[in-house]
């Protein structure tokens, strides 16, 4: 082969590769959907395990009901979800529909994402689902950016069958702290514990403390968060928060937690409740469905309130934990909007309850919860003895992190109550 032939062959090859690359790139970046005819969109949601997500099931149901629609789902690990979604939105390759959370206390909080211009304002259907008095968690400048899905109870998920598995036959869920500490003694003597806590996982120590704070802080001062926003109160000077953290220390000293609680991960809760060595855990109500799947039928899970102090009134956390939002840069907004409209329908809300175990936001007040895991707290829901999850209202994720890591410090003796509350104030003001 001559020099000229080799050069020609080389240039032919270069051109062919270039043309093929251009075609490939065009194929990748082309809009293969559009809003007319066959529709498609992408949907990102968080997942914590290898079970089929309720969101995946709902997407499948929607596609079955709408054969011309294709939903590409992107299940994303829960522990990296916030940063993944933020990175994708910043890079311009986020999904059309995104699972978000209300407020700004979380990396996936919709307020921060909306303020940065990454979310599309939603319509009247989403706005109609926003709980009265919680508008600031779902709206920015009067526009709604997240469609509420669930009504999650943040209290104690307890197995009323586990006491029998530990040989304790006369147990009823304690209604005051005296009975609770007596139960702690009973279960410790039986080789178990009343509570299983993931002491090394700040999200769990944080949720536990907030559930206790419901009775010590928010029962008496439901607008405490607003007062903190207005600068009228601080964590460090709040008697309610001091009592809350003192209760955590008292519970530890009374042997209410499993041995080695400060090193426990989420597996400590799953193993304790499904294995029958602990009675209750501070986990979202929907998680009871997943743990029940790993436990024997007699485990009998219920959502129970944490007792108030003597003379106090029972109070729980109950609010929307998850929302659906539409990516402002989406090229399939019509298809995404129709999906969100369907998610608000009674049919989809009922399916959501069946698949996730979470109460549906639009229908929980009309539902008959007799005989369900929610039966013990029906009265509290009916008379409004609940408040929204506090950290959804807090201004940044650092406050909740200071609480979660601080409580682990209380369990190990590294920190004092004042250390923890002062750190929360500092995080709030940063």
């Amino acid at each position, binding site marked *: 082969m001559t020099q000229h032939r080799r050069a020609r062959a080389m240039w032919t090859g270069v051109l062919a590769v270039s043309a093929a690359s251009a075609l490939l790139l065009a194929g990748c970046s082309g809009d293969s959907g559009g809003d007319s005819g066959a529709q498609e969109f992408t949907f990102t949601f968080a997942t914590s395990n290898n079970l089929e997500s309720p969101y995946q099931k709902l997407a499948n149901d929607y596609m079955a009901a709408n054969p011309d629609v294709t939903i590409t789902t992107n299940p994303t690990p829960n522990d990296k979800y*916030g*940063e993944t979604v*933020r*990175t994708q*939105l*910043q890079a311009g390759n986020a999904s059309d529909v995104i699972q978000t959370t209300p407020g700004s206390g979380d*990396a996936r909080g919709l307020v*921060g*994402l909306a*303020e*940065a*211009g*990454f979310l599309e304002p939603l319509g009247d259907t989403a706005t109609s689902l926003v709980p009265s008095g919680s508008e600031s968690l779902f709206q920015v400048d009067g526009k709604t950016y997240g469609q509420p899905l669930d009504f999650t109870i943040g209290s104690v998920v307890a197995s009323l069958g586990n006491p029998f598995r530990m040989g304790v036959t006369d147990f009823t869920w304690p209604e005051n702290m005296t009975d609770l500490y007596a139960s702690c003694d009973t279960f410790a003597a039986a080789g178990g514990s009343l509570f299983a806590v993931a*002491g*090394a*996982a*700040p999200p769990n120590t944080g949720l536990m403390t907030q559930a206790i704070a419901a009775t010590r802080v928010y029962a008496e001062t439901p607008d405490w968060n607003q007062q903190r926003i207005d600068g009228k109160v601080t964590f460090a000077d709040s008697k309610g928060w001091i009592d809350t953290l003192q209760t955590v220390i008292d519970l530890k000293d009374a042997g209410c937690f499993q*041995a*080695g609680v*400060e*090193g*426990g991960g989420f597996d400590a809760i799953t193993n304790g409740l499904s294995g029958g060595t602990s009675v209750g855990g501070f986990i979202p109500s929907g998680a009871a469905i997943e743990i029940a799947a790993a436990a024997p039928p007699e485990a009998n899970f219920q959502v129970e309130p944490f007792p108030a102090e003597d003379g106090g009134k029972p109070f729980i956390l109950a609010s929307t934990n998850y929302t659906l939002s539409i990516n402002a840069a989406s090229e399939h907004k019509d298809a995404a909007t129709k999906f969100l409209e369907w998610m608000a329908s009674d049919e989809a809300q009922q399916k959501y309850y069946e698949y996730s175990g979470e109460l549906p936001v639009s229908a929980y007040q009309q539902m008959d919860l007799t005989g369900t895991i929610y039966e013990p707290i029906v009265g509290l829901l009916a008379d409004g003895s609940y408040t929204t999850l506090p950290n959804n209202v807090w201004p*940044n*994720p*650092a406050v909740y*992190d200071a609480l979660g*890591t*601080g409580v*682990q*410090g209380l*369990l*190990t*003796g*590294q*920190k004092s109550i004042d250390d923890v509350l002062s750190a929360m104030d500092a995080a709030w003001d940063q």
Partner: protein
Amino acid sequence: MTTTTPARPATAARAARPAATDRNRLMKFGHWWWALPGILLVLGIHYVATSIGGFFAFTNWSGIGSFEFIGFDNFVKIFQDPSKIGALLNTLFLAFGSVILTNVAGLLLAVALNRGLRTRLALRTLFFMPVVLSPLAVSYIWKFIFDYNGPINLVLKSVGLGDLVTSWTADPTWAIWTVLVVITWQNTGFAMVIYLAGLASVPVEIEEAAALDGAGMWKRFWNVVFPSIRPAVAIATTLGLVNGLRVFDQIMALTGGGPAGATENLATQVYKQSFALGNFGYGAALALVLTVIILFFAVLQQRVTAPRAEV
């Protein structure tokens, strides 16, 4: 016999010189041309990306949306925050602790497995095996070992030392040591291989001559072997120090930075601030501090362990 080279005609020499010069220029141009993609990739991936990250250290960017230039505020905040000073001290503790332990253990293993032992090849493989395993997988196995209900506590209870039972990875005193143990266990094999390579270059004759002169084992090692493996020491300690300064996987898997921040180092703080808490600018400032520290110690290390000129 003599040979004579025919003189090149002057005209031919004049004609050949410009042609050779042109060819040299073309070759030089060709060298740059072929190297260009690589150079651009290195510049783009290593230096431009890092420089952009460094720029954000002087902003208050949250990771999304707009940002403001805030000068050195992030750095002032870092050095005024006791938890970040604690993370810095943990970084140095883990780096120097792991360098000392892995190099001492690696050198001892290398000397022991250098010659003589029949099973040395199999033993070298066994000791090197942890190096090729995923740090995350290794850490999760060790987490089980250190667990409150794990084998260490079971052994302690079974031998009547129940009072010593603790949550090792959540104990404020012991948690940082559990991280150090895992790093040392996994990286010793790497130091061993470097020292084995260094020992292979030590002439046996000189050792034998020293022995004949009456030098004992320690004197032979210190006066003959150790000077010969100085380059290996430089490589092993420098790489160990750089790796020790940026430990991340082991901490995240074993303790998550806990209990209550007791095992946080700069690398875990960079991740936590940048991605979990949405303080990207602050996280970038921490990363810049970590980079400067690594550079400082790497250069210092090279200076200390560099071969000295003969006097």
